[in-house]
């Protein structure tokens, strides 16, 4: 009697864990599509930033002769005010027209909705980094700025977020 109960318990445990494994596999397969989309959304924002000037000092055709001419604080200036999250159903994000240099995107937050999944949240941070080692954030001004993106989605649960970064040099 006890032998039978023991055997049935073992079998149940095995079936439940096998079932969980199958479900986990399906979850990973489904989520990978949302991760690919998240990467694409991040690359789209990086593409947008690539079209901007390196620094406010060179907007309008100026040049930078020395480091002190670079912006002291990283972020939007003057009238470059966007109420976050920046979102648009027609791809007309305010950052496209209001921002004119790379560091304007420091602290930027965008929500992107696609046909297959909505509420992709894209957060951007811009730092001065060492040009020869872009992973090293430097407090002082340099001729290299790095934008780091964190993209989160309610449909991505296996990893906390998708992270992308891109370094711009003058």
């Amino acid at each position, binding site marked *: 009697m006890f032998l039978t109960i023991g055997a049935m318990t073992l079998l149940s445990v095995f079936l439940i864990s096998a079932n969980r494994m199958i479900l986990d596999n399906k979850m990973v397969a489904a989520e990978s599509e949302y991760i690919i989309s998240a990467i694409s959304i991040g*690359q789209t924002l990086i593409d947008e930033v690539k079209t901007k000037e390196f620094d406010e000092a060179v907007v309008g055709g100026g040049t930078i002769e020395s480091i002190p001419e670079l912006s002291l604080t990283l972020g939007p200036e003057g009238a470059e005010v966007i109420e976050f999250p920046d979102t648009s159903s027609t791809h007309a994000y305010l950052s*496209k027209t209001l921002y004119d240099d790379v560091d304007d995107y420091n602290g930027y937050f965008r929500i992107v909705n696609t046909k297959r999944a909505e509420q992709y949240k894209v957060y951007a941070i811009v730092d001065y980094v060492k040009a020869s080692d872009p992973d090293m954030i430097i407090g002082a001004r340099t001729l290299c700025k790095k934008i780091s993106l964190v993209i989160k989605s309610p449909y991505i649960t296996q990893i906390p977020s998708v992270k992308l970064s891109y370094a711009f040099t003058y």
Partner: protein
Amino acid sequence: MHYLLELVGSSIVGSFVFLMILQLNTMILESNTTMGIEKITQSNMTTLVEEIEYDFRKIGYGATGQKILTADTTSIFYLCDIDLNGNVDTVGYTTSDTTVAVFSPNPKDILLYRFVNGVPITMTNNMGVTDFILLYYTENGTQTNNPADVRYIKFMLSLESQFAYGEEYSASYIERTIQPNNLR
């Protein structure tokens, strides 16, 4: 009689256990198959997106004057030195209808053609493209169909597996916006 009842009872229980194991085996097989199909679909998607991205980034490279020749929701033709040989080429993307992909069991898939100097190259013999939509935007994000005003190109690509598991085709969708440097 007592032993006979035990034998019948244990046979019934044993049969249920056997059926459960069979069912589990079927589920594992199904999971493996669908995972494999989904992996192929997503792999096709990333391959295709990389290629389209590369081509679209090159729009206008080496060309002067109007860089995009024609632009509509299913096709685009533009000028660029795609093979980096110093000569400007005409590159284009367009799609077929569903009747052309006769070799695929999926009734929805179409072919995506890439043209270089008028020579069509079928990109998606076995990729399972079901939809390829292009949208164009001006500098301030307004949608446009005028090739001269285009600064951003958004493509939306849907793929499905060629083969279904049961009645279900594995699907994948991506949208990407590209701003080619030479359209700035």
